[in-house]
């Protein structure tokens, strides 16, 4: 396999004289039965641009994962600067220290953070307390200017609101701007870029290479590869099959090398399908505009969906699944359809069940809820299909996770076939499956088709399409070719896959949610409206005394809501916060008065409890809901034990602490503003940025080396501190304590952050909004009283407000941006 050595590195006159930056030697890597890399040898010199091409599943991604520390190979060596790297001490961080970086196709930015904040997560080195984001804004601007001079991206814009192309540019600029960078790997960097941006990237690559940067350029766009590379490496079936200077490669050569001969040539080509069956699926509209005619799929056919990754095959398969009856839509389905996914973990196995039960589900899934299930009768049918797929009968009672990937997949295919639905949709069903299981699958699929079913099959392995009667090739979401019988060859599929249908633009714009700004303004508008209404009824509301009276109770809710906000920023909810406030109220009105030292100790222990809760949630995998529910009763119990009935008194100093005056500013208003300011400062600090990052993309942060446990503890302690302030404030104001005082604050705090414009998932929080939302909620009671409505309706109004806002957000599609 050392074709590398067979081909002299003569592309650049000076290349051979330079020692290699790094060498991968004899790399082999298997995932289960799939050999992703077979003894691959690859090297790159400083200043060299290598184009890496290959069909889907050829092993490029695996090789790059090995190179950048994302996977440890089964065999082989990595030599960097002439020194061999020890695999057990190699990982993404180590690779980055060596100056080896990859920009992935799927982006790894935190969507809820700004461009500059994302830059901080990656390079948290410079520390400047005031205006600390300044250097990172500059890095974003300078990094972008270096690569994409025409890009106009605001460093303070949230990444989730940038379109795909802008995100891609940012990601590339972030990696390219790394001062330690020596090798830059770009995986499909131009797939979502405009042609101008792509040209800018090409120019930047050339310029940086001239300065000595090594670049690996992975792309399905072969002309692009030939344009930017000094040398082209072609992979197929996990091995390097060609490695030559660009000058020695032509486009047809390259296409031939990528396609190659059928890997599964030993399988006999299918017999042409028999008589034309009834039409089961009809495709038309924009989907087939490039083809010029509608596509009808009939019973008895095995239809392949081919194309480059992301060409629209998966989407089409799902559209067929969700299409109903008939209508004017582009996709029409006649008859039931079952679905088999190759993503076994996320879309296939039911991990708690046996193999047999997993199969039987196919007969029970869509049944009326009250239909009786007779396990033995159902099992008989399931066993039949297991047998047809050569699934060992003695394994059927084992847990499905005990089986190999291939056998798991057989069970899932059996599930898709067992209820005799006329249409079977298969989404890459042989992913990571051994050749034996594949053959069984091909055979059964053929039988099933001949029995009068329609199989629609998306594969990421182009060789598999030789098993089909018919192949639809998709590109940019449209069908560009309809190949049948002898016309189905890997070459034809690949040639068509690279086609670009007219009228498609490469950059898909992510619709910016207009609702976001509206929701951002709601808390302030709502508050202004409410205060306006109250002032209209009674102008005294706006007087210093009126504010003092009305805002006094609001302080507590503001503090509790800010506590809840930090937890929700981590995509969790704290059910214990209300009772924690009660407990602090009791502790500070009793023990803290009689024995200040022990009182202080007890309060500190309360914070410790919050920290411990965080540790349990992270290390023991307890859902935060149940952990905090349990904790809420512990807080309540402590409070009740110390003081079974209301009473106590406030320590003098505590009253003084909350009872200061700024001339012209009512104390409660000052306190509310101060609390909001503290929360805002924390949220905007480096710590706050990391906390928010964890709320949206915990895996990405962990990969960058941030400790989930440490920041979880930070999060809960911050929340605990705000809740504690709320409890102390209650004591100071009421001069007494009541263990039942805090109960309703749990829901109110959640309502406050929702009214305040925070998302319950995805780490998007907004301290000023939360302050406004909490004050609004606190004023509702007073407003109702002024309107002559009993305060009994308080809870009803507050709860309805919470639900109305959440419902409205879903209705306006806000949830999509939550998920982004």
């Amino acid at each position, binding site marked *: 396999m050392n074709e590398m050595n067979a081909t002299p590195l003569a592309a650049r006159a000076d290349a051979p004289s330079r020692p290699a930056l790094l060498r991968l030697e004899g790399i082999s890597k298997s995932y289960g039965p799939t050999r992703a890399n077979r003894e691959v040898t690859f090297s790159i010199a400083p200043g060299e641009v290598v184009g890496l091409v290959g069909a889907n599943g050829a092993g490029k991604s695996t090789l790059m994962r090995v190179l950048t520390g994302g996977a440890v190979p089964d065999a082989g060596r990595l030599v960097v600067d002439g020194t061999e790297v020890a695999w057990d001490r190699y990982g993404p961080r180590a690779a980055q220290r060596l100056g080896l970086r990859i920009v992935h196709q799927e982006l790894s930015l935190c969507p809820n953070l700004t461009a500059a904040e994302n830059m901080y997560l990656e390079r948290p080195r410079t520390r400047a307390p005031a205006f600390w984001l300044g250097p990172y804004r500059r890095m974003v601007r300078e990094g972008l200017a270096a690569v994409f001079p025409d890009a106009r991206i605001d460093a303070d814009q949230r990444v989730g609101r940038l379109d795909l192309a802008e995100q891609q540019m940012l990601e590339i600029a972030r990696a390219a701007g790394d001062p330690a960078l020596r090798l830059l790997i770009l995986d499909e960097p131009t797939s979502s870029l405009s042609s101008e941006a792509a040209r800018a990237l090409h120019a930047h690559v050339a310029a940086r290479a001239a300065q000595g940067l090594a670049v690996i350029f992975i792309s399905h766009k072969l002309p692009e590869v030939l344009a930017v590379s000094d040398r082209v490496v072609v992979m197929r079936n996990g091995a390097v099959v060609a490695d030559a200077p660009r000058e020695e490669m032509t486009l047809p050569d390259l296409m031939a090398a990528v396609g190659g001969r059928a890997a599964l040539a030993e399988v006999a080509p299918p017999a042409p399908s028999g008589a034309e069956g009834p039409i089961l699926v009809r495709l038309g509209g924009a989907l087939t505009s490039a083809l010029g005619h509608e596509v009808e799929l009939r019973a008895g056919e095995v239809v392949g969906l081919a194309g480059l990754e992301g060409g629209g095959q998966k989407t089409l398969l799902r559209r067929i699944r969700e299409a109903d009856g008939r209508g004017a839509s582009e996709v029409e389905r006649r008859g039931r359809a079952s679905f088999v996914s190759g993503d076994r973990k996320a*879309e296939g196995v039911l991990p*708690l069940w046996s193999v047999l039960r997993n199969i039987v589900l196919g007969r029970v899934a869509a049944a009326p809820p009250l239909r009786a299930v007779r396990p033995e009768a159902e099992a008989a049918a399931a066993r039949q299909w297991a047998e047809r797929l050569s699934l060992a009968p003695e394994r059927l009672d084992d847990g499905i996770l005990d089986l190999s990937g291939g056998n798991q997949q057989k069970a899932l295919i059996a599930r898709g076939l067992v209820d005799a639905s006329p249409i079977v949709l298969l989404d890459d069903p042989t992913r990571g499956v051994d050749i034996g299981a594949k053959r069984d699958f091909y055979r059964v699929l053929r039988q099933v088709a001949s029995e009068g079913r329609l199989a629609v099959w998306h594969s990421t392995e182009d060789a598999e399409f030789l098993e089909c009667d018919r192949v639809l090739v998709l590109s940019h979401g449209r069908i560009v070719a309809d190949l049948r019988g002898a016309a189905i060859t890997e070459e034809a599929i690949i040639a068509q896959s690279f086609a670009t249908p007219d009228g498609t633009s490469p950059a898909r714009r992510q619709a910016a949610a207009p609702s976001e700004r509206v929701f951002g303004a709601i808390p302030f508008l709502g508050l202004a409206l409410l205060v306006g209404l109250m002032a209209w009824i009674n102008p005294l509301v706006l007087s210093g005394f009126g504010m003092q009276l009305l805002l006094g109770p609001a302080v507590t809710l503001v503090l509790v809501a800010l506590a809840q906000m930090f937890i929700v920023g981590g995509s969790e909810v704290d059910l214990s916060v209300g009772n924690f406030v009660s407990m602090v109220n009791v502790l500070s009105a009793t023990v803290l008065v009689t024995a200040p030292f022990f009182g202080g100790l007890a309060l500190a222990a309360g914070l410790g409890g919050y920290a411990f809760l965080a540790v349990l949630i992270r290390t023991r995998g307890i859902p935060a809901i*149940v952990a905090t529910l349990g904790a809420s009763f512990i807080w309540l*119990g402590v409070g009740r034990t110390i003081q079974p009935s209301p009473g106590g008194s406030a320590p003098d100093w505590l009253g003084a602490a909350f009872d200061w005056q700024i001339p012209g500013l009512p104390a409660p208003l000052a306190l509310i503003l101060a609390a909001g300011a503290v929360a805002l400062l924390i949220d905007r600090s480096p710590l706050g940025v990391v906390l928010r990052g964890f709320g949206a993309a915990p895996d990405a942060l962990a990969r960058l080396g941030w400790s989930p446990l440490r920041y979880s503890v930070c999060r809960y302690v911050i929340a605990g501190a705000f809740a504690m302030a709320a409890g102390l404030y209650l004591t100071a104001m009421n001069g007494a304590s009541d263990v039942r005082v805090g109960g309703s604050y749990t*829901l109110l705090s959640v309502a406050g952050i929702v009214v305040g414009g925070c998302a319950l998932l995805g780490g998007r929080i907004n301290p000023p909004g939360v302050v406004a939302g909490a004050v609004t909620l606190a004023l509702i009671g007073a407003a109702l009283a002024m309107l002559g409505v009993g305060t009994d309706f308080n809870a009803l109004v507050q709860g309805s407000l919470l639900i109305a806002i959440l419902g409205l957000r879903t209705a306006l599609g806000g949830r999509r941006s939550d998920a982004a």
Partner: protein
Amino acid sequence: MRPDLMRFAGRHRWIWAALGVVILWTVLSGLTQSISLHALTGVATSAAFLLIAALGQMVVVTTGRGNIDLSIPSVITLSAFATVTVSGGQDANVPLAVAAVTAVALLTGGLNAILVVLLRIPAIIATLATGYMLATVTLLVNRQVKSSGTAETLAWLATNRVGGVPVVALLALAATVVAAWVLARLAYGWQLSATGQNWGAARLAGVPVGRTTALAFLASAMLAGITGMLLSAYAGGAFLEMGTPYLLQTVGAVVLGGTLIAGGSAVPAGTLFGALLLVLIVATMQIAGLPLGAQDIVQGVVIILVLALAGPRNAR
């Protein structure tokens, strides 16, 4: 031998709660002479009320994705008030009271289902909010309550015994058997388990995941309604906060019984023993003279501890 035992315990997760019940019972009867048949009846009655509501919580938890029903206490309280107010202690009005409780349950469960399934609001928030709003309704009803007294039929169900066994315990046992049968032998049970194990996989396999989740919330509200109705008959009236202990205790019984908190696997027998164990723990603390607060602490600690010991496997 040992692996076999572990395997058995892994398959029948109710065994741990049952073991806990036996051990605690043995210790209790060894320590005090006061544990009598009478005490046993008391424990069985308390456990029965808890069990009926906990079965509903179990079904909701089994739908997975962190789903939980926090509106159970409010439904219990409001149903108790509805029973007292509507029946007015007259047997003739019992059907009307049943209708009222059914309406409360269906409205609450339906609202929860709409919020969670259609509006995609996390169950924890949705049920917290509905429960909170129901509290308002309860406050208003509380003002209206003029009549009191318990209809005889209901009183018989809640307080009488058949062959020494409390009727309500028999009812709870029957509910458990029905739940076990539905979960094991009806398509709904399969669909529920599939939904909770792997939402995406269940949906692609053709399970109506939305309907399945909605039915779980309806069932939970219905069972809470029944609990409230019987509880009002047992207590001879209704009072605010009547349902409050059931918030933590239903979750506790479910967790102790081995039902996976992450969803996908319900253990009705475990919930039975979990309810018994929890009530026994409370009874022990009462016998030991621990204050109310300490009882709260112990219950909270037990739930967190059980989950911490079960470990990440449980959370999946």
